[in-house]
């Protein structure tokens, strides 16, 4: 009976960690994992383990700060550091989020073009679908739909099995670090870390935990949610890497993006594996295309002092919904403009995300250890040391990324 009630609590609390984690496996993430598997086989899988640990560390911190303070990241930055710093952080976050949203809609376009659907049909439909979901749905309905979208990731589990990988080599690669010391390997490792831990994911998990009205008594269950989300994110990444390592790397093929991976899988692992890879890509893109504008809308509304929830109507929360609609319109619109150089836009976005990540992590860490803000839920010494170590390692990754791009 007691166990059943614990499971019920867990089911009620679950969501922020799962969605924030899984939406990190967006088309950019799938592409990065595919390149990792195709170019380096199982050798760099340990990077996924480290990324997963960083995800647990900072998503737990974000959820905890949100639950304890009842405020999202942008609002809390305004409260603690003033309007000017909040406005600067918001401006950078919005620009980076718009670029990333465009990348997600590009993922929808690319995934459905594999099935012969034009982007001029798929992208507007996707934009209308995600807008209708948030505008017309209650919090719980939105959460259920997003979690249902996340089930698309199961296709990668099947694709990995169909690829018949060497699981022993995969297990070895996961726990034994080794890497060739060349520019491309460094860039790939950095890209994997960067695609897993993103500013929009951090702001989303904090705001979403607040919107879900979790209380400090839910923190235990929320930690399980965060760890589960991070593990699932890592497992999906593992499956993508393994599928590509067993096929593309074994045959010596190289790829540029996830579409290449899906197409290249067909002769090597069969049509079903290729189709599943494509379905997973579209599902990942739709999930992230819903979460990114939501993260943007939360941040804009919080920084402007117009906090809102998904249960609010448009009339009650015009700033929130206008920011959501604006993010969807810009993200989808960029993909539909003929001749727009998407690759430079995406590279610039990734660079901005990387630059923004470090100061945001520092601000979050400072807030989380502030006893005035967090009371008895502040970060302990061990937690602060781990966070500082992770930020230092991420700093090295960002420096490498900026030096090599």
């Amino acid at each position, binding site marked *: 009976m007691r166990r059943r009630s614990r499971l019920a609590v867990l089911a009620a609390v679950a969501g922020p960690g799962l969605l924030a984690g899984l939406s990190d496996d967006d088309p950019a993430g799938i592409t990065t994992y595919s390149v990792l598997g195709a170019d380096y086989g199982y050798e760099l899988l340990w990077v996924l383990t480290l990324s997963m640990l960083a995800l647990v560390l900072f998503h737990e911190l974000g959820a905890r700060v949100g639950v304890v*303070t009842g405020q999202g990241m942008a609002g809390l930055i305004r409260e603690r550091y*003033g309007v000017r710093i909040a*406005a600067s952080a918001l401006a950078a976050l919005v620009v980076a989020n718009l670029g990333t949203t465009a990348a997600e809609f590009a993922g929808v376009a690319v995934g459905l073009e594999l099935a012969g659907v034009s982007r001029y049909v798929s992208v507007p439909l996707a934009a209308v679908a995600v807008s209708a979901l948030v505008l017309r749905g209650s919090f719980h309905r939105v959460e259920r739909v997003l979690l249902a979208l996340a089930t698309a990731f199961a296709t990668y589990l099947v694709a990995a099995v169909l690829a018949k990988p060497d699981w022993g080599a995969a297990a070895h690669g996961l726990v034994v670090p080794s890497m060739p010391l060349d520019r491309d390997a460094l860039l790939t490792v950095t890209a994997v870390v960067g695609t897993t831990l993103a500013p929009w994911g951090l702001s989303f998990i904090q705001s979403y935990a607040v919107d879900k009205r979790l209380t400090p008594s839910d923190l235990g269950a929320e930690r399980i949610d965060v760890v589960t989300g991070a593990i699932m994110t890592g497992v999906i990444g593992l499956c993508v890497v393994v599928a590509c390592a067993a096929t593309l790397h074994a045959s010596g093929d190289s790829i540029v993006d996830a579409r290449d991976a899906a197409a290249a899988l067909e002769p090597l692992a069969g049509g079903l594996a290729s189709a599943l890879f494509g379905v997973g890509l579209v599902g990942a893109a739709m999930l992230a295309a819903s979460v990114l504008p939501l993260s943007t809308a939360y941040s804009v509304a919080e920084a*402007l002092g*117009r*906090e809102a*929830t998904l249960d609010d109507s448009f009339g009650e929360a015009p700033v929130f919904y206008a920011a959501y609609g604006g993010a969807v319109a810009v993200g989808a619109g960029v993909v539909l403009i003929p001749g727009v150089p998407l690759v430079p836009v995406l590279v610039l976005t990734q660079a901005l995300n990387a630059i923004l990540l470090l100061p945001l992590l520092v601000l979050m860490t400072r807030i989380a250890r502030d006893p*005035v*803000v967090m009371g008895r839920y502040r970060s302990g010494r061990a937690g602060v040391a781990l966070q500082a170590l992770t930020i230092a390692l991420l700093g090295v990754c960002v420096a490498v990324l900026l030096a090599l791009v």
Partner: protein
Amino acid sequence: MTRQILLSSCIGLPVRGPGGRSLGRVADLEADPRPAYPRVRAVRVRDGAIAWADVLRFGPETVDVATAPVARDSRGLLLRRDVFDAQVVDLAGRRLARVGDVELVDRDGQLDAVAVDVGLAPVLRRLGLGPIARRLAEEWIPWPGIYLASTHGHRLQLEHRAEDVHRLNQTELEALIGRLPPARGGEVLALARPEDPDPHGTARRARRPRRFPVMRARKRAPS
């Protein structure tokens, strides 16, 4: 003589001591939270505080004082630290707005906090976008419509206009009283018939009072 001052325009003003000696800049205003309208009792600079009785002239360009600041811990309500940018939530915990500015009234040499602006205008003004801010409506909440929930050095402060308390249903009233120390809970009920609920007339200027029947500004961790 009555003069209206915005907190945002006070922060950073140069403070001059006897002989025009620079004593730093206004970092915060320390107020007594007990009156219906918190009364400023000291000007804080980086190195300490100067009692309001020693302030010779307050603004608009400088603050002239008679003595040097005295190093001491902050006491009472610090308007910048505790109120600026604080989140405003209703009794049910619903997030409504965020404090963008605090209106002070200088009446016969006494400076009182009388209202908070929760609109977008003060945000834009503080970002240096004054011309745009002037086109937006102000959204003032009279001070008696809020209370501060803080665990940092001072207790809950509460003053409510009688009509605000009357507007609450039984559940909301119980929730409100449940959040307060017993003595203050009794005061809420007593507030049903205050002698002068709004001496500064701020309620008459509030543009959107109905959206904010009773609020608390939260800026600290739960105890």
